[in-house]
């Protein structure tokens, strides 16, 4: 067991800072989602009446023939899925102690969110 190993009082804690990277990604994706939420909100409020065409246009508008609406929506959704993975992973880490079950939950969470991302991206680009 690791707790039996003597590692000394002044052991220098080193690492690849994977945790720091996750911490920063969680916050950067949060900021992206705040910004995209406000973009959508302004878009909805500037519509003249809440119509189907106006709603659809929020996610499909073009700028100089470039599919900016789809690109922004897809980037926001990837941010959402990544943000949600880090958050749900923290929940499993805190409450689920058996390693095998926790690993299974990580895998299921990734599949759950990746499935959602594919669903959304295919939807805004394809239909």
């Amino acid at each position, binding site marked *: 067991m690791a707790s039996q190993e003597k590692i000394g009082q002044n052991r220098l804690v080193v690492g690849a800072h994977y945790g720091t990277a996750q911490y920063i990604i969680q916050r950067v994706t949060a900021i992206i989602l705040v910004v995209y939420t406000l973009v959508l909100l302004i878009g909805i409020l500037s519509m003249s009446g809440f119509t189907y065409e106006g709603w659809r246009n929020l*996610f499909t508008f073009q700028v100089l023939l470039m599919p900016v609406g789809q690109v922004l929506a897809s980037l926001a959704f990837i941010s*959402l899925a990544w943000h*949600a993975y880090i*958050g*749900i992973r923290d*929940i499993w880490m805190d409450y689920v102690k058996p390693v095998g079950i926790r690993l299974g939950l990580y895998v299921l969470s990734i599949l*759950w969110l990746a499935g959602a991302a594919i669903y959304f991206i295919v939807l805004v680009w394809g239909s």
Partner: protein
Amino acid sequence: MAESGVKPRKTFRNISVPQILSYRLPPAGQISILHRISGAILFLALPIIILPLFAMSFVSQAGFDAIAVISDMVIVKLILLVLIWGYLHHFCAGIRYLVLDLHIGLDKVSAQRSARVVLGVSLALTLVFGLKLFGAW
């Protein structure tokens, strides 16, 4: 154990559910656990409730119109209300955490005050969206 004459010290294991429910959290603790709960709700609802509704509204005019019909059902309104609260709470509490990460408002008094503000603002916004959802105007 009792042979030594020393009373064994009480050991604290994981707290049980009744203890969790009777434990009074300070405002910052309340919004922290609600941040986690709202995040988990949104995670679970995303592929099975939120995206199917979005797909309906996005793909065709008929689907867009059908959303209004579906949300006439009270159960659907209640589900939407929970999701609206979840998003708004997660949004407001998340902004508070981003500000705290900048080392703003970290002292005990202002941290508890901002937690109460988050709780109040997210509930007030939920009320506004809820009134709209239930057709107050």
